[in-house]
């Protein structure tokens, strides 16, 4: 018995490893192959630009339906509009060390890539080290303010401000006075979304009931890419009496939309205008989305590098700068638009300060 158990365990564990490896390979092969119009500065056609851009993703890379994808969209736009000579995109491995991230950035810098963009706060310390070693290379980091140097631009977002607006929208649209929040992974970044959403909903209806749940706990980051879990969590909320659910769960959001559709409820999208990007069948349940314009930030940064106007330090994409916003696709929030814009004005003018941490 014992040896059978061991044999089977070992065999299935190995088969699993192999399959996972193969699946991962098949899945990302296409996106990681980057089109490079000219290989290197010397072969670049006149007017084709000589800029070689390096982009280091966080776990998930291109195709994660979340902020990695948004960064990729910004890069793609820059490729066509600014005519970049070459763009190299590198992915992070799951559970890797800081040393691996540092090495990734260093290889890009050594390879002549300039500017280099790191996606995600996990690159904070590695970026600070590598930026000090390559003072002539321009760096940018998304979602991190801690790495500071003369050649680092910090692309920051006021997710709590945008979330406040969709929180207000949820409360205004909720007939049962009961809304929900589904977070991908319990990390401080997602806490910002929750804090803003709560504050917004309570600003409209102080006695509103708010359900809140997270799909996974760090270091388990599957919550950002598990539609089945998202569906189960949202179903629970609709069953408990909520009628609007906001998700900040990346790829898991698809499940939240399905649950909303099945329960005849409403959902709120995140990061991009999901009434345009989600699966066709569920777009009508997405009443609005909290847009976080990582793509705009990446594009702006690349543009500022190419015209020489790049500035180091924090660049905050808040409500005032249009870096976060709510979407109106589908016309479902048209009737409350004036109210939402009123809140927007109050936040922009400083009359309302949105908390960025849940209490």
């Amino acid at each position, binding site marked *: 018995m*014992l*040896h059978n*158990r*061991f*044999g089977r*365990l*070992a065999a299935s*564990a*190995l088969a699993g*490893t*192999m399959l*996972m*490896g*193969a699946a*991962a*390979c098949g899945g*990302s*092969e296409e996106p*990681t*192959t*980057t089109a490079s119009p000219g290989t290197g500065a010397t072969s670049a056609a006149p007017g084709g630009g000589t800029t070689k851009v390096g982009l280091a993703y966080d776990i998930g890379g291109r195709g994660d339906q979340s902020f990695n994808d948004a960064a990729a969209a910004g890069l793609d736009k820059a490729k066509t509009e600014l005519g970049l000579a070459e763009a*190299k995109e*590198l*992915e992070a*491995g*799951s*559970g*890797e*060390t*800081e*040393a*691996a991230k540092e*090495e*990734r950035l260093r*290889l*890009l810098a050594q*390879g002549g890539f300039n500017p280099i963009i790191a996606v995600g*706060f*996990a690159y*904070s310390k590695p970026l600070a080290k590598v930026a000090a070693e390559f003072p002539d290379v321009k760096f940018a980091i998304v*979602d*991190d*303010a*801690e790495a500071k140097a003369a050649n680092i631009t910090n692309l920051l977002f006021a997710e709590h401000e945008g979330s406040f607006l969709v929180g207000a929208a949820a409360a205004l649209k909720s007939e049962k006075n009961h809304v929900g929040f589904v977070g991908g992974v*319990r*990390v*401080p*970044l997602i806490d910002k979304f929750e804090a803003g959403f709560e504050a917004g909903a309570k600003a409209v209806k102080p006695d509103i009931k708010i359900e809140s749940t997270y799909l996974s*706990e*760090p*270091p*388990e980051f599957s919550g950002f890419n598990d539609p089945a879990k998202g569906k189960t969590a949202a179903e629970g909320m609709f069953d408990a009496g909520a009628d609007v659910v906001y998700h900040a769960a990346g790829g898991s959001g698809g499940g939240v939309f399905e649950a909303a559709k099945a329960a005849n409820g409403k959902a709120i999208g995140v990061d991009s205008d999901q009434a345009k990007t989600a699966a066709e069948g569920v777009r009508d349940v997405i009443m609005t989305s909290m847009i976080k314009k990582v793509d705009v930030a990446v594009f702006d940064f690349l543009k500022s590098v190419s015209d020489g106007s790049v500035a180091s330090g924090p660049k905050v994409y808040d409500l005032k700068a249009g870096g976060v916003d709510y979407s109106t696709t589908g016309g479902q929030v048209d009737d409350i638009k004036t109210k939402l814009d009123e809140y927007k004005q109050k936040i922009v003018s400083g009359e309302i300060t949105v908390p960025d*941490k849940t209490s």
Partner: protein
Amino acid sequence: MNSAESTFTDRLLGRVRLSGLLSLAAPVLAVVFAGAVTSIVLLVSGDPPLETLGVMIDYGTQPRSIGLMLNSATTFYLAAIAVAIGFRMNLFNIGVDGQYRLAALIAAAVGGAVVLPGPLHVALIIFVAMLVGAGWASIAALLKVKRGVSEVISTIMLNAIATSLGSWLLNRERLAVQVGNNIGTKPIPESGQVPGMAIIPGTEYKVFGLIILAVVVGVGYHVLLNRTRFGFDLRATGRSESAAVASGVNVKKMVLIAMIMSGAAAGLIGMPQLLGASYTYSLDFPTGLGFTGIAIALLGRNHPVGIAFGALLWAFLGTSSEILQIHEIAPEIVQIMQGTIVLSVIIAYELVHRYQITAEQRRVSRELASGTPPRAEGASV
């Protein structure tokens, strides 16, 4: 030990030795097989196998890469030893992953909270880590000894519980401080850090000071298993529980001690990274090392030197995945290579073992046919 009497598990976990040239044949066969499979995968994905290997070796032999490799290998080695201690006793400690994460988190919190003179501070952190790892493993051990719960099931569940517990502890209201979008324990002051050593010529890159700890653990593992009464009992129990009981070994006590030792060793896994690089346990602390440890323990056949080679090979492959991405080769190739190598080693050793068994049987029947009395070990065939 006669390989004809052995089970697949015994052969899988390296309890049966191969004799003479055959002990060389197995690894050679494994390398050839792994090379062939990887080449096919590379060809299918449209990358030339030889050039890919060339790129990896080129990058992997640079002084800086060697430093990176040694550092990851240090961590991998400790992980594999933690797993191997369990394997030797027929315990499948899948909980190494949860044990080291929880240990690193609590040790980091303790290390960041106190200020002590240098060596004492480091010793305290390492002691706490071992204690937490052992404590967490002892839950599974007690469940097995008292209630007969399979350690495979309980450790998998304890991994999930460790994740949730860790997440609960890593909170502003408890053990953590928030820095930007990251959250982690209070940084360990300088007195608790272990400086790196620039021992590789041609680079300033520093190797973890705690690489010495890995060497000490490796030697300790060898001595304990092969030079002590406890090690003998442990190996005997792993081989045959009934025989061990008959010769007076308290099996329950052995299970308890082996699991606790495995957990204590697991507690060490995060230490090189924590005391040599991160100085804090935060959201980006490396994960999944317990599972890597299982693969490397199998690869190294639970032998302290074999595991060292396995850890270095694994680290080499991991380090070179970065350069593959630069050359537009999917980094997942590395995972396929790692999986293939473990599989090849297991298959190759099994094949060679079976060859040895058949050869032995033939020898015996030949001797029987020619009228020479067979040697005693042939009797049981």
